[in-house]
């Protein structure tokens, strides 16, 4: 069955143990999470979890309805890929040498990366963008040698004045 990449935004009670309740549902029902982020929201009572996964239509519906059954889950919305803004942040440490330094800095510049730390043997760069941009950056610096890297996973909001509380079309 055809699988699509989907982004799910979840508003939950900002309480002890809620994240494990949400992730336990995915584990128990055999759905694989690609990325997960969680953080504070405009209201201290709630946290917002953003989960991306690849899922067929029936699985998507099942994930959403199972999430809605969780007591601490207040709102679940599948964000449309076209109608949302999404960003991911990466910190990446690339091997540095006199011969490669210029090319690394140039690559970082093209991708609007920021140099966070510069040492004789390593350069640490911050890159922000959608996931494909970050994937692209990784491809371009691979040959220099990636020492370590760390990605946050996607955070996403609806475009315009639409919010998670607005009516979303269910397809």
């Amino acid at each position, binding site marked *: 069955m055809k699988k699509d990449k989907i982004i799910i935004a979840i508003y939950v009670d900002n309480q002890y143990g809620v994240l494990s309740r949400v992730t336990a549902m995915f584990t128990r029902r055999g759905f694989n999470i690609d990325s997960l982020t969680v953080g504070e929201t405009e209201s201290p009572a709630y946290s917002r979890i953003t989960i991306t996964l690849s899922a067929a239509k029936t699985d998507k519906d*099942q994930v959403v309805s199972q999430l809605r059954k969780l007591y601490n889950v207040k709102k679940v919305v599948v964000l449309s890929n076209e109608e949302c803004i999404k960003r991911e942040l990466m910190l990446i440490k690339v091997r540095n040498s006199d011969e490669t330094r210029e090319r690394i800095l140039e690559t970082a510049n093209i991708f609007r990366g920021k140099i966070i730390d510069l040492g004789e043997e390593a350069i640490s760069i911050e890159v922000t963008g959608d996931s494909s941009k970050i994937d692209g950056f990784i491809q371009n610096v691979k040959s220099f040698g990636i020492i370590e890297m760390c990605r946050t996973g996607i955070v996403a909001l609806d475009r315009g004045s639409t919010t998670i509380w607005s009516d979303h079309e269910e397809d």
Partner: protein
Amino acid sequence: MKMTGAQIVIETLLEQGVDTVFGFPGATVIDIYDKLFDCGGKIRHILAAHEQGAAHAADGYARATGKPGVVIATSGPGATNLVTGIATAFLDSVPMIAITGNVSNSKIGRDAFQEIDITGVTLPITKHNFFIRDIKVLADTIREAFKIATSGRPGPVLIDIPNDIQRGTCEYASKRKIIPAKPPKAEDDAIAKACEMISECKRPYIYFGGGAVRAGAGKEILKLAEKIDAYIGCSMMGLSEIPTSTPRFLGMQGMHGHFASSVALAKSDLMIAVGVRFSDRATGKTDRYALNSKKIHIDADCAEIGKNVSVDLGVCCDIKDFIARLTDAVEAGKHPEWEEKIKSLRARESDAYDDDTFVPREVILDVASKVAADTRIATDVGQHQMWTAQFYDFRQKHTWLSSGGLGTMGFGLGAAIGACFATGKRSVLITGDGSFGMSLNELATAVTYKVPVTIVIFNNRTLGMVRQWQTLFYDKRYSGTTIERQTDFVKLAEAFGAKGFKADDIDEFRKVFDQAYAYNGPAVIDMKIDTDAMVLPMLRPGGTFENLVTWKEAENEEG
């Protein structure tokens, strides 16, 4: 009024209408038990032999009445012993409140004596659970637990209360009893769509399950069936919601369902599924399940729509309201060809039992003919359970107490005891020698409280259901299923202080059952059953209803 946490627990239970709790005390619930001692018998505490038995009793109490069952256990092993009981209630959507003690908050996370993360352990088997960190939220949390357990699709809720919370003090003000929230009513569009589908069908079949029992929708289903000329079948969880003798009722369908019911489901061109979740034991292979029919699925739980079987119209709503409105709106129908087809299926089914030589059936029929209509019938899990489901004549709601989803051997005795406390009347447990061995310690509880439970052990000296699979699909290689114990169930019953009887054939059974049933306390009947008796018909593993294992085929395999 200022109260201790333990007092608040008792007061809140009283406020929520609790009159009976099942449990077993221990170090971290001594304070709750101390206040239970003070409540002047307004809450009856039933001491079980084992926390699992207490949990099954709370479950049986709930199934027998529809009211939530309450169980109390101490931390650590007390709490983990509840797990099978909670999971059993979860899989069958039974409203239950489990209260556990835990070590004081200051010791949490330090692996203190009898400390266990029971909210972590029960996370996937409760509708929701709570750990109390602050005494100020204790009363409202218990109230919320009752609301969650009884609203929408019911289920078990666990509340873990550390000892310092029980000993602390806080203001308490009584509140009203929680009214369970109903699922939303269906939109008119959904009713109209269902009417349209019904008007186009020629072979309608209403298939209901546990959701219809929880909603109490039996009468509404019957009315709808009359109006649209549909036949009715149910899942194992649906049994007893409508009387077995209902002319349109074909009985349980599924893996060991009635032949006519299962085949009619496969032949129908419209299935109206009410409060079912299309379990694999009911459907067989889902990609070949009921391919001839369009499907309407109505359930209180939105996540059930399309989970296992894709449907043409799925409505997540108050099912009793939906069926009643649909019955008003739909045009009456008549389907004489369908009636003929059903007649012939029924004739083939009754041919299979044209004499009275099948002992398990005769035993069940005898029990059914002698007990009162409102007698709760509990079972364990295995062949005896399926035979009871197939042959017992259910006459009243909430009389069938059996572990469907989890299939818990050892469920029955606790459940039967719980049912006796709920109804104040007799109950009957049909069990097997394998299942009974798992929970017979609760005989002690039945004796202590003089519980009028009549226990019929189908003793075939084997784990019969597994043996049946081994006979049919594993070349008669009886690995691990032959029971070579020397247990004397009559002496065992007597040692516990119960009555014990033995019957080697059906005539003896008829006599001893009368004596056992007349006894006002627990009585055990050790009934001898043929080791090779089988539950038929049977859906092959991964098979379809067009290809059932029937009596003829099984005869060749027997012996």
